[in-house]
């Protein structure tokens, strides 16, 4: 084993509406940005991961386009917006078995051009039992929110506080799409999309992307940049498995527990958390499933101001998250990891920088918490190499 793996470079694309930039060019821009941040070059890359929505055939097209002629490891794990967390974990594993030492993870998406459906989507066996009833993504998350309210007494105002906290953070992010603070009342007064979720309970959709460079301990030691330790990682898949629906627990119950175990830490050790905030309810369920509060107590927890950075008890999504900052290609995992790296490097915007930020957790859920989902969890540390 080759020791720990580290995140050496991180880059978030500043664009939010990029119809004139090709998807391949976006991948290139974020790749070059992250490599420059690390002090590395394309020629150093020997591992490459992205999702199957990358332009072309698998990663062959992009590898050729980027000139990555030393690749010994590639991976296109697909769990929606949480996939990039899985990629970082897989990069760490590939590095730890000695397969490679500089691994690029890229994410790019253009909501403005429409999102590609997975190539075998029409073969999904459940389609005939879901589409004819008029389902779609917001109503599915609404089904989970309604059930959470029923079981635990969660209120719409408590869900709204998730958006309020994100909007407070986004005021300080010059790149954020929505930079205006909103109130609980404004969330509740926004149009109802699917009860109980209002328009402002839903994340935004943008173009953009981001990239990370994951390196071996030896490479990390050779770099001038503050490298962030990957202390724990895990993924999980959860569906109804034949009609056993459970809308108030996500796959993060499993991925979170395993990531904590690998890292040797618990919820009390986490100084900052990045959560894929596809909807306000997604944040609430993740907070519970990752043990930051008891199951069912997510509402009162967020209502206490816990999420507000830097002074809340659990500063969360200090860039404004997917609710306000960006949600490139409807895949929100990458920006959450990048902001966590900023926090651990003490390079976040000063107004939201968590003091003495040493351990961060990042969690994402892709797919739908109303049907079937893939979760990824990372535990990251700021300790020296």
């Amino acid at each position, binding site marked *: 084993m080759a020791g720990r793996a580290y995140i050496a470079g991180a880059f978030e694309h500043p664009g939010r509406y990029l119809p004139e930039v090709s998807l391949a060019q976006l991948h290139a821009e974020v790749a070059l940005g992250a490599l420059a941040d690390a002090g590395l070059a394309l020629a150093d890359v020997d591992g490459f991961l992205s999702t199957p929505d990358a332009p072309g055939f698998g990663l062959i097209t992009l590898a050729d386009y980027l000139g990555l002629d030393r690749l010994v490891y590639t991976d296109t794990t697909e769990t929606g917006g949480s996939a990039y967390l899985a990629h970082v974990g897989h990069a760490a594993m590939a590095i730890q078995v000695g397969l490679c030492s500089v691994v690029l993870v890229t994410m790019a998406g253009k909501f403005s051009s429409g999102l590609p459906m997975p190539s075998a989507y029409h073969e999904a*066996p459940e389609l*005939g039992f879901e*589409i004819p009833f*008029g389902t*779609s993504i*917001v*109503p599915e998350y609404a*089904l989970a929110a309604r059930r959470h309210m029923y079981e635990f007494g969660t209120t719409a105002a408590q869900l709204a506080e998730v958006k309020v906290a994100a909007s407070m953070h986004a005021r300080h992010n010059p790149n954020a799409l929505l930079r205006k603070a909103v109130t609980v009342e404004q969330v509740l007064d926004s149009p109802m999309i699917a009860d109980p979720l209002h328009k402002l309970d839903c994340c935004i959709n943008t173009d953009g992307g981001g990239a990370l460079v994951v390196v071996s301990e030896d490479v990390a030691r050779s770099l001038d940049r503050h490298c962030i330790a990957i202390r724990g990682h895990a993924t999980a898949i959860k569906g109804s498995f034949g*009609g056993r629906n459970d809308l108030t627990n996500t796959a993060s119950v499993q991925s979170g527990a395993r990531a904590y175990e690998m890292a040797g830490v618990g919820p009390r050790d986490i100084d900052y958390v990045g959560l894929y905030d596809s909807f306000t309810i997604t944040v609430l369920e993740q907070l519970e499933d990752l043990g930051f509060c008891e199951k069912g107590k997510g509402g009162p927890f967020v209502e206490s101001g816990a999420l507000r950075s830097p002074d809340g008890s659990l500063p969360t999504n200090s860039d404004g998250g997917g609710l306000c900052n960006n949600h490139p290609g409807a895949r929100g995992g990458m920006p959450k990891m990048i902001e966590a790296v900023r926090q651990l490097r003490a390079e976040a915007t000063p107004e939201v920088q968590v003091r003495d930020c040493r351990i961060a957790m990042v969690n994402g859920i892709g797919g739908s918490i109303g049907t079937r989902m893939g979760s990824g969890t990372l535990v990251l540390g700021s300790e020296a190499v």
Partner: protein
Amino acid sequence: MSTPHELPAPTPLIAPHSAEFWAATCEERFLVGHCHACDQWFWPPTRSFCPRCGGAASLREAAGTGTIYSYTIVRVSGAIALGGEAYKDAVPYVLAYVELTEGPTMLTNIVGVDPDGVTIGLQVRVEFSRTGGSQDPALPRFRPA
């Protein structure tokens, strides 16, 4: 107050694994997946095997009764992108999970009631919405029992 109205009944995508289910809906028979080995019911009825024990499974007639596990009143239709064009002008409508008496939970619509009167725990019974004539498949929807 929302007025109950007829929901669109788009033709389901019928795959080889689901042809028997949809054929039965023409006769308004409601079939659910059932495992011979472990006696468990499952939904959707898209498998020849049991997703719990891997044993051989087949379709079996179910009571067609259940309770609402969760629901949402869709006010803005987003279904179009997924092939749900028929729902473009159908709002508001109720999308729900119904927990069948046999155990599994299924995605469906609640009809025959003011959407604002729908509650979790409400007892419901299946009814079939014709997608065309008597030889065409019918969608299993639920109304208060």
